[in-house]
């Protein structure tokens, strides 16, 4: 499967994976480092660049992450969530 990488001009040092955000913290989506299908799906669920997300819950033992995005609650598997890079706000 072809990996579609999205590159950004921004300084990437302050980018952290979504899974590193603590419960209740907010972040701005900067890049999604996953395959084309997953990127498209996440885009469609509202996770496009510059979107603000809030972590509501982290599943036990690297379980899925629950976030709030555009007023809807979204659950994302841990593996995929760790490929979503955000800038903490």
């Amino acid at each position: 499967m072809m990996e579609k990488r999205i590159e950004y001009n921004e300084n990437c040092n302050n980018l952290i994976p979504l899974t590193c955000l603590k419960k209740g913290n907010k972040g701005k989506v900067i890049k999604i480092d996953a395959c084309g299908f997953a990127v498209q799906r996440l885009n469609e669920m509202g996770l496009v660049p510059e979107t603000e997300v809030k972590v509501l819950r982290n599943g036990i033992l690297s379980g899925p992450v629950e976030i709030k995005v555009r007023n809807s609650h979204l659950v994302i598997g841990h593996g995929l969530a760790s490929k979503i890079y955000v800038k903490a706000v």
Partner: protein
Amino acid sequence: MKEEIVIALAGNANVGKSVIFNQLTGLNQIIGNWPGKTVERAEGILKYKNRTIKIIDLPGIYSLSAYSQEEIVSREFIAFEKPDVVVNVVDASNLERNLLLTIQLLELHVPMVLALNQIDYANKKGIDIDAKKLSNLLGIPVVKTVATKGKGLEALSDAIIEMAEHVRDKDIKSYDINQERVLNYRSEIKETVMNIYKILLKNNIDIIEAYHPMWIALKLIEEDKDIIEKLKNKKGGEEAYKAIIEEIGILKSKFNDSLSTIVTSDRYKIASYITNECTTVKENKFTLNDMLDNIALDKFWGYITMTAVIFLAFYGIFNFGGYFSEILSNFFDGFKPFIYNLSIPIMYKDILWNGLIEGFISAVTIVLPYILPFYVFLAILENTGYLARIAFLTDKIMHKVGLHGKALIPILMGVGCNVPAVLGTKILETDREIFIASFMATLVPCSARIVIILGTIGIFMGPQYALAVFAFDVLVVYIAAFFANKIAPGKPYDLIMELPGYRMPALKPTLKQIWFRIKDFLYVALPIIIIGSFALEILKYLNLFKYITYLTNPIIVKWLGLPSIVGIVLIFGVLRKELTLIMLLTLSGTTVITQILNPRQMVIFGVVTMLYIPCIATIAALKRTIGWRKTIWIVFLNIFGAILIGGIINQLWGFLLK
């Protein structure tokens, strides 16, 4: 005035689209599959104000991309069947996300009506939507509805009829994206869309007869594989595509993100603008919903709650199922004398009873007692939103075998009966997941197989041995799924799931949904079950079993170390698993199993019976769920696995206990 109006319902999952469909069509429904696809197609008729309105319920989708069968089915229906009106059902409490699909439907430039559903729920969340303003912003009629209570459905029907009567002039020859009021993308995209549009027009590609050229242009920018293929197959398409690629290349060089991300970003910008313009949020209070989730999704209490819910529900289902199954069997057995008192040769009586009626009875005694309560349970889990919570809690462990948390429920259900378990896998998203989950479900010991294990190993060797066999089976299920995950085409995807708010399921639509699912199963299963039982009965009367044992002996006797007669009873087990044990005793003329099997054979017999083939009702359910080709695969894998594992136990036993 049009005689018949055709409309399509389109919308996200969990927005109450099926409820609207059920409320509008009543019992006039046909449920089947889309041609050549495993996607369910529901069609119904509404008679309203002397009109006949044919309603097609499109699958629940979030987008019109080409990544899932559901999306392709939906957009092809709209493009090629050209419904008079597309009714877009949106969740008022989650407007912004829902508008993404609305905007994509607007891109298709088809006549549309928007049903703003679950208004009550939005109000509860403190959200107020100005429908008139929304209608103005989108340029289409908007009707507020509360489908579960039947509110607003008449107004919706009126709006549909009016829209269908509306004469539209669709002059695609002089289209200009700069005239669009709603679809306001960034100027670079607009420019490229117009350039592609001109290329399409110049080359006279007839694909624009089906889809609007503006939509095609956008899809080409998004690198939609399906549309690219369709374009290339048209006369002059290859040439046009070359010119289009150049245009897209120029656009690509202007951005860092992929173009599909850019286009989706723009759509969200539009959705966000419209939502902000027409909604007022009173207060963002801590809702009951959040409180429930603090328990249901808690790292400790969440699992306790889940275990309790599943345990109680299954306990109820099995008790109800077992109880009713027996009552129904007794009831039907009461008819046996009628057949056997007929003055026809005994052979015909047997064929009539065992071959035809028994098949019907087994279908009914399985379907009614187990499937009905399970469907009720599943409908409650799904419609209240709790199923999504279970998916959250169990996602990690299911992820290891390429599934998501949702798959746990149907697989667990297999313990009662494999039939509803297999049918229940339909709640999963991709064909791949449905395949793996149904495969797992067929290996879970159903109540019939549990009886066999308990009745042989449990009684004569001790319950601890029976438990060991069950534990072994859990291992087999997990390992089988692990391999299925490896061999199934495609690759597993991480969970991306919307967590819907808790709802009170509406009674009438839920009951209708359950009824249609059961009816649908009976149509497919009854013929298969009856033909199967009939064939076996004929086999018995032609006395072909002798020859069958010749064929099965090498495996049954040599490899598995079982008595030759097991080869025959296993064939009967295909009808109903209990028959393996019953036939074994009947054919051997004893009621004591220890006279036929020693402990080693008992264990092997138990394991083989548990794994060797799904019963005929399960095969029928598999056919309904995944089609014949994959069903045959599963049957083959089960037979192969049972022989392999049974044989290994046989060899190891001899080796270890020598």
